[in-house]
């Protein structure tokens, strides 16, 4: 086994293996007759290590052996491979969030009573992780249920200065009839979202059923309104 081929085999094995490989493990790849011996393997690894010097991956030795790994300086780009596409929240989550917003402080049993169904722990956890709700206290009842309220982050995300800027409950019940007012609210939201703002201004200038539908569609498109709130939401 010449040095070139030894290097080629060891590089391929280290890259194919799901875990680090030790010198004995690398040696086991070769039959007795072609056995290069640990020194030769170690020298091949040294050469391979040098080869990676300018590259995006490095050949490193860890406790259980040798492996190729992504270099720290390119990691920020590589990490984007694992960014998950935002999905959509369930209706149950939105209802729960809305009830917490309008009826805070409120306990889970109370939400369940109004919604008529059990609220899953996942929903509460998701809302807490997003820092839209938090526990603000406990009701003095058996089990001491937690009282939930919304946070500043919640207000910031929806571009509200205070909860008072949410439409009154009475209006919400008749959302359909309140469409003009509602559109306005949606438009003001979109205005902050940047590119869509222009469209909504046009809508206002020349309101027509067609543009209204279009505006609605763009409001619903999750990617359009963007996964991340525009900068100013967070400022």
């Amino acid at each position: 086994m010449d040095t070139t081929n030894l290097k080629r085999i060891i590089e391929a094995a280290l890259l194919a293996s799901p875990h680090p490989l030790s010198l004995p493990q690398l040696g086991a790849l070769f039959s007795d007759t072609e056995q290069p011996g640990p020194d030769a393997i170690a020298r091949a690894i040294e050469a391979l290590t040098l080869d990676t010097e300018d590259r995006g991956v490095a050949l490193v030795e860890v406790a259980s052996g040798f492996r190729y790994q992504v270099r720290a300086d390119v990691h920020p780009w590589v990490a984007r491979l694992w960014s998950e596409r935002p999905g959509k929240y369930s209706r149950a989550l939105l209802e729960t969030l809305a009830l917490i917003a309008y009826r805070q402080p409120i306990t889970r049993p109370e939400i369940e009573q109004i919604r008529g169904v059990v609220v899953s722990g996942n929903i509460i956890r998701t809302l807490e992780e997003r820092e839209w709700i938090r526990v603000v206290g406990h009701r003095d009842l058996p089990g001491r249920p937690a009282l939930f309220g919304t946070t500043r982050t919640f207000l910031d995300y929806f571009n509200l200065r205070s909860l008072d800027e949410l439409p009154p409950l009475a209006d919400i019940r008749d959302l359909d009839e309140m469409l003009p007012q509602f559109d306005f609210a949606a438009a003001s939201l979109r205005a902050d979202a940047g590119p869509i703002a222009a469209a909504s201004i046009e809508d206002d200038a020349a309101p027509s059923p067609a543009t209204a539908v279009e505006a609605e569609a763009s409001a619903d498109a999750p990617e359009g309104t963007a996964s991340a709130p525009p900068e100013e939401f967070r400022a």
Partner: protein
Amino acid sequence: MHSEPSEAAPANVPQGVFGPIPQQQEMPLALVRGLPLLQMPQDLYIPPDALEVILEAFEGPLDLLLYLIRRQNLDILDIPIAEITRQYMDYIGMMHEMRLELAAEYLVMAAILAEIKSRLLLPRPPAAEGIEDDPRAELVRRLQEYERFQKAAADIDALPRMERDTALAQAQVTDRVVVRLPPPVDLRELLLALRDVLRRAELSGHHAVRRDALSVRQRMGEVLKSLQDGAFHAFQTLFDPGEGRLGVVVSFLAILELAKEMLVEIVQEAPLAPIYLKARIAASE
């Protein structure tokens, strides 16, 4: 080998498609071992055990036919139907002994072969000597078509493929953090969700949701938050004079509402003494 033929029934090789079709109980599928030697054609000695293995190896009547044709180095376009039919019948005769479910497809082919054979034996009018009239044509076409895909299957099998010929090369990523982008929510969606839940609540009738000054509700949460340590807090520390008169009123209403909902305890040891507030249950509990 096979020096110990069992006492099982004598071979019952059907003589052709029109031969007696054995009843199901005569052909136990599992019966392989101990079956007496079938009456084989001289050139086709097959021990019964092996026969099953071989039949498994055929992918159906077309495969068997192709095998028979190849075995005799015959031009596929010029099949000696009589000879092939004879051999084929011998095979399916043996199959009959072994596997009923195989036989069905093979029997259809036997019928086709027998039909072709009989048509070839009939005198043909001289005018109709075209290829289209060759009764073998359709069979040849099917054999050719099937052979193409046999070849294609072998070609695909020969392609360099993962696992067998190559493996994905991967480097370790340390600190793999999933950058999770949370789903976006539109205020409109939120309000529509609320409308739905309110409508449902109204339908069930019992849960009238009152209209509240939301700023009071918000302040209730804030007050509770500041009381969450479970300790007593002086009443006036809950007000921010910087908020102005309206802010103070909102805070005051919030405290009253909290007291009404039994969420806070208000303590005053004597008239005009300092007032203290405490959450009835601290968040930390």
